Structure formats: structure tokens, C-alpha cells
């Protein structure tokens, strides 16, 4: 590229540039040289008028600057090329061992996917903003009974009214009262669920209607305008999202109501026992009798803390107010206090503990997975010793080799992360489907950017965890690869350490799962006190359509008669408080026993009063302990009688028969005297794991009641039976709506959904852990044994028989397993304490569970050692020795 005859200085400068160009990566070299040559020549040309020593020296100095430039380019190139090379090499290595790659990706994807899905759930429940204004200041308020301090009980109307009047800690406090409306005029009569709310309900939640308005003060008084607010999904489903919905009139309970507002989609306070997505909300007009009602509690209260008031201060004031109410009303409120629970905690429900438990489980699975992949990598590392030795001999430094191994780990875990996130999407759907239906907010659970970032961090950590240990193990170029393999030394120790870790982690998980399974089995084995098979329940609220006691009696008598006529039906009864039903009206009564001194307020214990028709017990197959059931002869004209529950008998007459005794109760504010004619065995009412309640059953004929559940025992499909029952009701009153209906088996089943949820997930994780653990142990032990082929060959050549070799291998395996079990036991007992609150009738340290789990792991571990041990004895000593 000579253009003309150059002066010496230019030739020197161009020589320097040419020399430096050798350093520049070849792909860039021509351009680089052109650039530098052009600059040097241009400078020389422009110096023509002004040549002196200093400008010449300056040109020379600048030419030397070509070297730093060239060196910089070379460094860049090398770094990029090394990274690219590492990646390419890693890809090739993984591609060449598809079995290993698939196994490792699968194992890691399980761990990463599981962790990401559980963390997403936790995030959704605990950290995602609630859809309410300044949501952290919203509290739910419950009644707490000193006898059962962990149960959030609904609030009695008069208690709520007193709280509202006396407390200063809230800027708004309001109640929602579960209510269902018979909706007619939109086709078939149907039930719309919702609530009546007191003034300020939407203010307490900090929620404004999406369109329209909330309620006006004049709508909370008798005779006020009938205004209703509907939920977003009701608006969409029933009114097709019609923008002109406001001021439309709909017929609820046979009266015209004006729709004044539509709630935003996010509105789901889950205060009511049966919230439903499609709901109607109306103003509560407080009735006079409610100002005195303290015995029955069915209101749900929500409040907003006043500015500057802390939760503790508000609770402190609530304690004072409750104490004052208790002094004024000792009979009903002696052991009751108001209990503030932050909204978020309320929404989270009881799932926080199971979810944290699940998080522990997935992290354990991930840990076992890492140990597994680490051992797989180590095994491969052994096979690749030669590769590393050669690369080290050719000048690759330790850092370079470690980088190569880390690249492989990162590539592996990145593939696993992608698979894991896919898995997490799927797992989230499965978990949400399995989850107790009350957890509406879970449906919002989605993997967002933050969760992806979390997955990325997790992946890097995982790669470091399983990649670095073997990397340092095998990248020491100083190690003499040709040296004889030994059965001891740091590598073997590390491998044994991995087995120990896997067994210990698996023991923790299996113990947790075992305890939950045993607890669930015990729960399912609880006798509910009735037979749920072939029974269906159909609930009606018949006050509005019956009115007088006489009409109520007639309505139920005639519907029961119609139901009896259904083919295949054996018994038909009806009851006011149906075991395991979602919405029951539980009525408590003070109880005095005739002939005993009247119980003081302090001595009063909760006693429930339930109205039932004669065949209720037979329909439910509730066994009679003593005396007789309620019968058809117990009419309104006959002497007042009652059947009591076993729990009440044991409380009041532990050592004698209560038959013929007289008791005094209160019914609709009136004292009534009943004679006990029978005792039925104990019935679980709400949950299988709750104590049976002290209950008095009175005949429907003598104490007519509108909110009843029909119970039908009969052959055939439950759904067909339910349909037939509904038709029977409608044949008497075509406008009577059915509130709820289900097979009793489904009701009982729904009560254990939470326990089943925990148990199913935990068992799934434990099984994954067991499989991983077994394959991991097998892999490591068989690999270790294979490494010792030569040693075993020598032993056999010297006369050792197969049995002694097997013993040798097995003994070593057992020591490792024993250490793992011991460590795991400590962890398992500690971790089981966390489960305590989830367990039913089983102690966290249950020896049987832990024993079985240890035995299972020991068997798995020993059989994993046995196969390699047998293989070892088949080694031909000659081959083994020639292996050198």
C-alpha cells in the first residue's frame, strides 16, 4: 500500500503501526491498519508547512499509541471469544451426554419451578397490593370467646351497635349481614347472594363504586328508598355490562329495588360465609329487636382505623369497650371481646402456614436436586479428568477451567429455569384449582416480572450451588490424574457428604409428608356421627313465603310429604342447623335445668338449639343412645319435648340418665320448658376436627322455624334426588327459592379441602424427593464402587470371596446412610414442630411416622448400594488389574 516514496519518519511510524497490527485480532486487522496509516499520512501531509522537531516527535509518539489501541482490541476479542467458546463448548458437552442433560434439567426444573410457583402464591397473598384505598388501615372485627380464643366468631348485632357508638379509634366501622335475595323477573326465580350493609361500609373499605354511587343516609331508615348496589360480575353476567344499568329497577324478594351503583371488579372482601362473585348489596335497616340481640351472632364487621391510631391502640380501646359491654350484659357477653384482625391477615386466611410449609418443601426438593446434579457432575467430571488434564497441560489456568465448568452449570440451570417457569405456570393453575375455594385472591396469582427476576437469581444460585463444588474439585491441574484411585481422600468425602445431605433432606420432607398423611387419615377416620352416603341436603329460607307459624308448619309438612313420595326415598327430615352446611343459622340459648339452682352468668356454657322434624335422625342415620327420637306425635298440642346431644348429656348429666328431666331455654326471647325424651350420639357439626357441640333438638311442630335444610336419604344419583326434592318444593310453592343444595358427602368433603390440599402437595413433593434421593444415592454409590474396580480386583485376586466384597461395599453404604439419617432426624423433628398446628391427633414427633420414614430411606439407600455391590463382585480380577 505504498502511494509514494515516504520520508524516513513516516516509514518508521508506519512500521510501528504494522508491528502493532500483529496484536490486533485478524478479523479487524485490515481496517485497523488502514485507519492508522491514513491518520499518520494525513498528519504528515498537514505538517508540511510546519515541520519541526516537536511536531515530528509528536507524530512518533502518537504512532506508539497504536499499541495500547491494538492491545485493547485484543483483550476485548479474547474475552468475547472465551465466553463464546465456553458457551459453545458447554453446549457441545451437554449435547454429547443427552441422558445426563435431560436428567439434570428435569431435576432442576422441578426444584426451580416448584419454588417459583410457591413464592408466587406467597407474593400474591402477602405482598400484592390490596384493591382497597389505604388497605393497611382496614381491619376486620370479630368476637372472640375466652373459651376458644383462636376462633374468629361472627358479631352479634347489639355488640356491633355498641362498638360503633362507643369506640373512637375508627374513622368508619360497618357491618355486612349475609343475605340472599329471591330474584324474580329475570326468567326462573333464583337466589342472588349478597349482604345488607350498615352505613359507611364502602367508606370503611375505601372503595367507591365503579359507576353510580354508594348508599345515602336516608336509605338506611325504614321506608327509605330501596337502593341496591351490584357486583361487577353480576352486572356483566346478568345485565351484559349495560352502561344504562343505573336507576333500573329489579325485583328482589318480590319488591322493586333501584340499582344505584356497580362495584369494581376487585371488590371481594370475603367477609361473608357465602360471598359469591355475583352479589347484591343493600342498605341495612336496623330493627329494634336487633338492638337487644347479643346471643345470636351472624354479622361481619369491617372498620377503618382513624388517622394516627395504631392497631394496638384500637385493640386496647376495643378491650375497654368490650369489658364495659360485658359488665352491662354479663349473661351474654361475660367472656366475649372484640377482636381486630387486619384485612390482609383476614384475606390470607389459614393458608399462610401451609404455604410456608410448602415453600420449605420445595426448597428441600431444590436442595436435593442440587445435590443430585452435583453428584452427576462429579461423576462426569471423573470421566472428563483426561480432558481437563490435557487442557491444563496445554496451559489453561485453574480459573479458566473453573470458568468452563461454571459455564456448563449456568447453561444447564438456564435451560432448567426455562422449563421450570413453564412448569410453574402449570403448577400454579393446578394449585389454584386444588386450593380451598375461599381464597379468591389466589386466582390473581401470576408470574410477573419480579417473579421472573426471582427465578433468574434462583437459577444463578442453583448453578453456583451444584456447579462450583465439583468445579473446584476437578480443576486442580496440579493433581496427578494418572495416580491410582483411592477409596478415601477429599473427593470421596465430598461424595459421601452429598449422599448424607440427600438422605437428611429427604428424611425431613418425608417426615413432614408422613405426618400430614397420618393426620389426614385420622381426620377422615373421625366418625361424624351420621352416615353421609346416599343423603342429600336442600336448604331453603322460607320465612318470607310462610309468615305465620301455622303456615310454616303446613309448608314443611306438605313438602316433606311430597318428598317422601319420591321413588327410592327412604327418609325425609328437615333441620335448622345442618352439619357441614355452608350457611347455618346457629342459635345459642341459655340453659337452666329444672330442679337445679339457676346457673349464674359465669356458669353458663354455650348450648345450641336446633329445630328438627321427626325423621331427621333416621335420614342422617344418627344413632340413638337412650330414650327415643322426636316423633310425629310431638305436635304443637303435645307436651314440649327435646332430644339432646351426647355432648350435652356428658356435660350436664355425666353419671345419670337425663330422660324425663326438664330444661328451660329461651326461644325468640321467650322462656320455654322442655322435657328430655332422648339422647343421640355425638355429631360433628362444622369440621371433623372440632369437638362435638352441646345441642338441644326440638320438634319443628312445636317451634316452627323458616330456615331449614331438607335431608333426604334414598337410592340413586344425588343430583337426581336434589332435582326431585326441588320439584317437590315448587309443587307446593312455585316461588320458593332453594338457597343451596349438595350431597352430604360433598359437604363433609368440602370441610377437609384445606387439609387435603396440604397433604396432597406435600405428598407430591415428598415422592419427588424420594425418587431424586434414591436415584442420587444409587448413582453415587455405584459410581464410587466402579471407581474401585482395581482395588476390588486386587482383593479378589488375593482370595476375597464375593460375599465379603459385598459386605465391604454395603458396610460403607450403611455408615453413610446412618449418618444421613441421624442428621436428618434432628432436622425432621425441628421441622415437624412447624407443622404442629396443621396436625390432627398426632404429635410432631410421632415415633411411628419417623420410624417408617427412616426405614423406607434405609431400604432405599441399602438397595441402592446393593446393586453396585453385586456388580463389584463380578469383576474379573485380570481385567481389573489390566485397567491400569
Amino acid at each position, binding site marked *: 500500500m505504498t502511494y509514494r516514496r515516504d520520508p524516513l519518519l513516516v516509514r518508521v511510524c508506519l512500521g510501528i503501526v504494522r508491528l502493532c497490527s500483529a496484536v490486533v485480532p485478524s478479523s479487524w486487522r485490515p481496517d485497523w491498519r*488502514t485507519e492508522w496509516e*491514513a491518520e499518520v499520512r494525513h498528519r504528515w*501531509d498537514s505538517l508540511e508547512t*510546519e515541520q519541526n522537531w516537536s511536531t515530528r516527535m*509528536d507524530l512518533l509518539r*502518537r504512532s506508539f499509541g497504536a499499541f495500547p*489501541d491494538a492491545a*485493547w482490541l485484543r483483550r476485548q476479542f479474547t474475552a468475547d471469544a472465551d465466553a463464546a467458546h465456553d458457551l459453545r463448548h458447554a453446549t457441545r458437552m451437554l449435547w454429547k451426554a443427552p441422558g445426563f442433560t435431560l436428567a439434570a434439567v428435569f431435576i432442576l426444573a422441578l426444584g426451580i419451578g416448584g419454588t417459583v410457583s410457591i413464592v408466587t402464591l406467597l407474593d400474591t397473598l402477602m405482598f400484592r397490593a390490596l384493591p382497597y384505598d389505604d388497605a393497611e388501615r382496614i381491619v376486620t372485627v370479630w368476637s372472640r370467646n375466652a373459651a376458644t380464643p383462636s376462633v374468629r366468631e361472627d358479631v352479634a348485632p347489639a355488640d356491633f351497635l355498641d362498638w360503633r357508638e362507643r369506640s373512637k379509634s375508627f374513622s368508619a366501622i360497618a357491618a355486612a349481614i349475609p343475605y340472599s335475595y329471591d330474584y324474580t323477573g329475570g326468567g326462573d326465580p333464583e337466589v342472588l347472594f349478597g349482604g345488607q350493609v350498615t352505613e359507611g361500609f364502602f367508606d370503611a373499605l375505601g372503595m367507591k363504586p365503579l359507576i353510580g354511587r354508594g348508599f345515602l343516609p336516608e336509605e338506611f331508615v325504614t321506608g327509605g328508598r330501596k337502593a341496591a348496589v351490584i357486583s361487577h360480575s353480576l352486572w356483566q353476567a346478568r345485565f351484559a355490562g349495560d352502561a344504562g344499568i343505573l336507576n333500573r329497577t329489579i325485583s328482589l324478594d318480590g319488591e322493586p329495588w333501584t340499582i344505584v351503583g356497580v362495584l369494581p371488579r376487585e371488590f371481594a372482601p370475603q367477609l361473608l360465609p357465602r360471598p359469591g362473585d355475583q352479589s347484591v348489596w343493600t342498605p341495612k335497616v336496623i330493627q329494634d329487636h336487633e338492638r337487644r340481640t347479643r346471643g345470636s351472632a351472624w354479622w361481619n364487621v369491617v372498620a377503618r382505623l382513624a388517622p394516627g391510631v395504631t392497631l394496638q391502640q384500637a385493640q386496647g380501646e376495643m378491650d375497654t369497650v368490650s369489658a364495659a359491654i360485658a359488665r352491662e350484659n354479663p349473661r351474654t357477653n361475660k367472656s366475649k371481646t372484640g377482636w381486630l384482625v387486619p384485612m390482609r391477615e383476614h384475606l390470607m386466611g389459614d393458608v399462610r402456614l401451609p404455604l410456608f410449609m410448602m415453600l420449605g418443601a420445595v426448597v428441600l426438593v431444590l436442595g436435593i436436586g442440587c445435590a443430585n446434579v452435583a453428584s452427576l457432575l462429579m461423576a462426569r467430571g471423573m470421566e472428563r479428568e483426561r480432558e481437563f488434564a490435557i487442557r491444563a497441560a496445554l496451559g489453561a489456568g485453574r480459573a479458566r477451567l473453573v470458568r468452563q465448568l461454571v459455564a456448563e452449570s449456568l447453561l444447564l440451570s438456564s435451560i432448567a429455569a426455562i422449563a421450570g417457569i413453564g412448569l410453574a405456570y402449570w403448577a400454579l393453575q393446578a394449585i389454584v384449582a386444588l386450593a380451598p375455594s375461599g381464597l379468591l385472591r389466589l386466582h390473581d396469582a401470576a408470574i410477573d416480572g419480579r417473579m421472573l427476576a426471582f427465578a433468574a437469581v434462583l437459577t444463578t444460585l442453583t448453578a453456583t450451588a451444584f456447579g462450583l463444588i465439583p468445579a473446584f474439585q476437578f480443576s486442580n491441574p496440579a493433581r496427578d490424574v494418572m495416580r491410582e484411585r483411592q477409596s478415601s481422600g477429599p473427593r470421596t468425602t465430598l461424595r459421601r457428604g452429598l449422599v448424607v445431605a440427600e438422605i437428611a433432606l429427604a428424611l425431613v420432607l418425608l417426615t413432614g409428608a408422613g405426618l400430614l398423611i397420618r393426620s389426614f387419615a385420622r381426620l377422615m377416620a373421625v366418625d361424624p356421627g351420621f352416615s353421609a352416603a346416599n343423603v342429600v341436603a336442600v336448604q331453603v329460607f322460607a320465612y318470607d313465603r310462610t309468615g305465620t307459624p301455622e303456615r310454616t308448619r303446613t309448608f314443611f309438612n306438605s313438602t316433606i310429604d311430597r318428598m317422601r313420595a319420591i321413588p327410592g326415598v327412604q327418609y325425609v327430615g328437615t333441620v335448622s342447623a345442618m352439619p357441614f352446611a355452608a350457611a347455618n343459622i346457629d342459635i345459642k340459648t341459655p340453659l337452666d335445668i329444672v330442679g337445679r339452682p339457676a346457673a349464674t352468668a359465669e356458669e353458663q356454657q354455650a348450648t345450641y338449639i336446633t329445630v328438627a322434624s321427626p325423621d331427621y335422625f333416621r335420614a342422617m342415620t344418627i344413632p340413638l343412645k337412650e330414650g327415643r327420637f322426636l316423633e310425629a306425635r310431638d305436635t304443637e298440642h303435645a307436651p314440649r319435648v327435646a332430644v339432646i346431644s351426647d355432648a350435652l348429656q356428658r356435660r350436664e348429666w355425666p353419671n345419670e340418665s337425663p330422660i324425663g328431666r326438664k330444661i328451660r331455654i329461651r326461644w325468640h326471647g321467650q322462656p320455654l320448658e322442655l322435657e328430655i325424651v332422648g339422647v343421640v350420639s355425638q355429631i360433628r357439626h362444622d369440621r371433623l376436627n372440632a369437638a362435638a357441640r352441646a345441642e338441644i333438638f326440638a320438634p319443628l311442630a312445636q317451634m316452627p322455624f323458616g330456615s331449614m335444610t331438607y335431608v333426604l336419604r334414598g337410592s340413586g344419583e344425588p343430583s337426581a334426588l336434589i332435582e326431585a326434592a326441588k320439584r317437590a318444593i315448587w309443587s307446593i310453592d312455585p316461588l320458593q327459592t332453594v338457597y343451596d343444595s349438595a350431597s352430604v358427602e360433598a359437604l363433609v368433603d368440602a370441610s377437609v379441602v384445606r387439609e387435603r390440599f396440604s397433604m396432597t402437595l406435600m405428598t407430591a413433593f415428598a415422592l419427588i424427593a424420594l425418587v431424586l434421593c434414591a436415584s442420587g444415592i444409587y448413582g453415587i454409590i455405584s459410581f464410587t464402587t466402579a471407581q474401585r474396580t482395581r482395588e476390588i480386583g486386587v482383593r479378589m485376586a488375593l482370595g476375597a470371596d464375593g460375599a465379603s466384597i459385598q459386605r465391604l461395599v454395603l458396610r460403607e453404604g450403611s455408615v453413610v446412610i446412618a449418618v444421613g439419617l441421624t442428621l436428618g432426624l434432628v432436622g425432621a423433628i425441628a421441622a415437624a414442630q412447624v407443622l404442629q398446628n396443621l396436625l390432627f391427633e398426632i404429635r410432631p414427633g410421632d415415633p411411628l411416622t419417623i420410624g417408617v420414614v427412616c426405614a423406607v430411606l434405609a431400604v432405599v439407600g441399602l438397595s441402592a448400594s446393593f446393586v453396585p455391590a453385586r456388580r463389584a463382585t463380578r469383576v474379573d480380577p485380570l481385567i481389573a488389574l489390566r485397567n491400569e
Partner: protein
Amino acid sequence: MGRLNLTFPTALVLQALARGFHHGFDIMDATGLPSGTVYPILRRLDREGLLASRWEKQATAQREQRPPRRYYSLTSDGEGMLAEAVERYHVLDQAVPRASQRLKPSRA
């Protein structure tokens, strides 16, 4: 690719580019920086997409009997970076002359 370190020399190079110095040696003249500093900075700016480069027209190069020079100019990202640099280094404005003021070859 990590974000570029906005050092003072880098700021000077950006300013020089913005003020109409488009070739390596001219930038050295404008900034007073040695070639071993200016070129790596140019390479880095190039890699980060803060500047674009093209070659001088072949005709010009042949007329002057030398290879074509490489012509650097700021991209819009580069101008953003310069704005940041001006913000950070208040003396930048005085540190680099404008290309319209004819320069003497530097003695740096």
C-alpha cells in the same frame, strides 16, 4: 454489555466529536489526549453504539495519495451521553475548542 464509564477523557472525546472533530488524530488535537487513550475510548464508544463510523470517500483519499481516513460521528445515544457529560463536567465547555476555530497541531 455494561454501561460505559463516563470518565473525563471520555467526556472530552464526546465533546470533540460534537464540536466537529471527526478523525482520530483531530480528536487528539482537540482534546490534548494521547493516542493510546483516545483510540480505546473511540473503540468503546463504537461498541456501545454511541458513535457511528464510516470511511472517507475513496476519491478524496486517492487525490491525497493515502488510504481513506475513518470518520467518526455521534449517534443520538451518543448525544444523550454527551448531555450527561456536560451535566457532570462543567468545565467541558471550555476544555474543547470548536472545529471552526482552526487548530494548530497539538503538542500533546
